[in-house]
């Protein structure tokens, strides 16, 4: 059965050192399917830009020295799926026909899920995908997959833990996006505060990613009198609007914001975040917008790579630019470790990275691909907004 899925099967799954498709002695081809149009095109564009920035710079240096001793350049093919599962599957099939060595870094839960089975049956790596859906890091269910970013649960959990350990009593209001993104954050948060008698959830609302306004939810939640607001929101303008709305109606709780909607320049400043006692977020990557990282070597190189090779002007508006850059570095590690030009060897190498502090990663976070059930990056740091950028928060308050 395994053979029938793909006529290239003999070539791709054959043992020994027969090279897999998409890899030659001088090059390797990666494919990315991600939304490059439609509502999620902003972060989608970033996923491509970051990867291109990383490998563009590497190629310019002459390429990457692989574990088999050959130096190869990395060729990236991108495909727009517009966040449509049917299209991402189609793109995957196209990649197979275009002889892509591995797929990865693409953004989106449904779009990645749509071809997960196909990738497994055709033994094509689908790695470092940008979704917090845990299924991609479950090695039994997803032998050819690996997630990149912390599961949404981890992010929510990190904040919950911080809050629970604060000692004080807090009433929490929750607003979450009505999908696995929002649900993941909320369940991680709730798991972490389970048993903490000092924390109570007093209001919980959802919104749709397509909504133009969530004023009503804010009004409703403000009425609960909560002093902590857990806002699991992935939409930039809505996040700004909530920051503005809450202070307008005089509700000034401490905030929690997810890693991808907590940009100091793009969101917090226009939202007037200084009005609140504290804005918390989680992060594992440095924020290039933060003044404290302005001179950071990683950040400086990243920004110049992004401009030169990622074809991306200005400051990244979404953290996905940084994340995919880190993904690039992680792949680089795997390449250096793979001893055969095969997908098998690649997966083995990819799963053996530990304690790798990739460029742009915050001190105290590392890439660890060896834990079953966890994505490549599972550790996050809770951060607190300091009016300009973020600083790691040791405790709540």
């Amino acid at each position, binding site marked *: 059965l395994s053979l029938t899925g793909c006529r290239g099967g003999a070539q791709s799954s054959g043992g020994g050192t027969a090279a897999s498709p998409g890899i030659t002695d001088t090059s390797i081809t990666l494919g990315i399917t991600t939304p490059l149009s439609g509502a999620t095109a902003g972060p989608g564009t970033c996923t491509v830009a970051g990867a291109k920035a990383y490998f563009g710079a590497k190629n310019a240096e002459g390429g990457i020295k692989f574990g088999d001793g050959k130096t190869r350049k990395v060729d990236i093919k991108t495909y727009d799926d517009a966040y449509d599962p049917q299209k991402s599957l189609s793109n995957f099939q196209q990649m197979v026909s275009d002889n892509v060595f591995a797929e990865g870094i693409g953004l989106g839960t449904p779009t990645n899920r749509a071809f997960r089975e196909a990738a497994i049956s055709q033994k094509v790596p689908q790695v470092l995908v940008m979704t917090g859906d845990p299924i991609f890091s479950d090695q039994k269910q997803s032998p050819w997959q690996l997630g990149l970013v912390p599961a949404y649960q981890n992010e929510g959990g990190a904040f919950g833990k911080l809050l629970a350990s604060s000692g004080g009593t807090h009433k929490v209001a929750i607003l979450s996006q009505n999908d696995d993104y929002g649900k993941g954050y909320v369940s991680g948060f709730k798991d972490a505060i389970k048993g903490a008698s000092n924390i109570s959830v007093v209001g919980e609302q959802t919104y749709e990613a397509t909504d133009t306004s969530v*004023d009503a939810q804010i009004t409703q939640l403000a009425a609960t009198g909560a002093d902590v607001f857990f806002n699991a929101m992935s939409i930039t303008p809505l996040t700004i609007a909530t920051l503005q709305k809450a202070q307008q109606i005089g509700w000034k709780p401490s905030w929690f914001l997810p890693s991808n909607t907590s940009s100091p320049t793009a969101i917090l400043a226009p939202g007037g975040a200084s009005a609140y006692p504290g804005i918390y977020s989680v992060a594992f990557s440095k924020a290039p917008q933060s003044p404290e990282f302005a001179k950071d070597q990683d950040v400086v190189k990243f920004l110049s790579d992004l401009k030169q090779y990622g074809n991306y002007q200005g400051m990244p508006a979404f953290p996905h630019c940084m994340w995919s850059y880190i993904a690039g570095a992680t792949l680089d590690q795997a390449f250096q470790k793979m001893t055969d030009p095969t997908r098998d060897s690649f997966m083995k190498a990819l799963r053996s990275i530990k304690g790798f502090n990739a460029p742009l990663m915050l001190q105290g976070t590392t890439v660890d691909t060896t834990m079953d059930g966890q994505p490549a990056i599972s550790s996050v740091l809770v951060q607190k907004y300091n009016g300009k950028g973020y600083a790691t928060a040791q405790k709540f308050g």
Partner: protein
Amino acid sequence: METFIQLVVDGLSTGSIYAALALAIVLVNQATGLINFAQGGLAVLSAYIAYAFVQAGLPLLAAVLLAIVLSFCLGALVERFLMRRFERGDPDTAVVVTIGLLTLVTGIVAVLWGYNNLQFPSLFPLSSVHVLGAVVSVRSLATTVTIVAIMALLQLLFLRTKLGLALRAVADNPASSALSGLPVGRLLMVGWGLAAALGAVAGALVGPQLTLTPGMLDGALVYALAAVILGGLDSPIGAVAAAWGIGVLENLVAVYVPLIGHDLKIAVPFALIFVILLLRPQGLFGRKVVVRV
């Protein structure tokens, strides 16, 4: 009670976003008989144009005015060089052409300005005032006032001016209108131009709140269409009233009927539309289309 009032106020302010777009849809429908899916897209483009002027150093008001003028020309050109070919044909085709136009405009905006959110400066201060225990931002108050003013102007245009009469005549029956000497092509251009200019106003009004992205009005479009149909395709007053009604009703239902909640609240306006249209096919404020056998 306070929450209730605040929810109503919130609903009105959200409704105003829909209303801004709805008015433009009514205008183009009255002037060309078409439902224009690209209306939102054109408004977005106008907002970006205004943004570009601001970036170039123009004062905000001047930038917006200039964008309005440019949008008028753009609308007229779109009519002349694109829609003209389809106006005599199957209306379904024309609607699909507007869908294609929406796609194209979105694409152009994306290429020129990217998909990242851009902060559009507000014409009005960010402060807020207290009314009846509810907090109203000056911005949405001003937006609301502007929309009411536009609504009144449109109503006047259609019912009291020669131009309005000519626009309606052309939309009703271009062939017959031409026989009375109405320059059909030019009037259609004016109709599209006015709608695009109005779209520019709408874009400038909602831009600060939604922030600029190529698809910033996609979500509002469905609501605006719903408002137009509910209020009556030919009635500016109806469109605005329905948009507000939808905004308020949604909020109240979501909050006070927990079973529906915020995720399914969008079903409420549609259920309402269904019931109302069964009783009044022409919409709340619309005039009935008379069809005789």
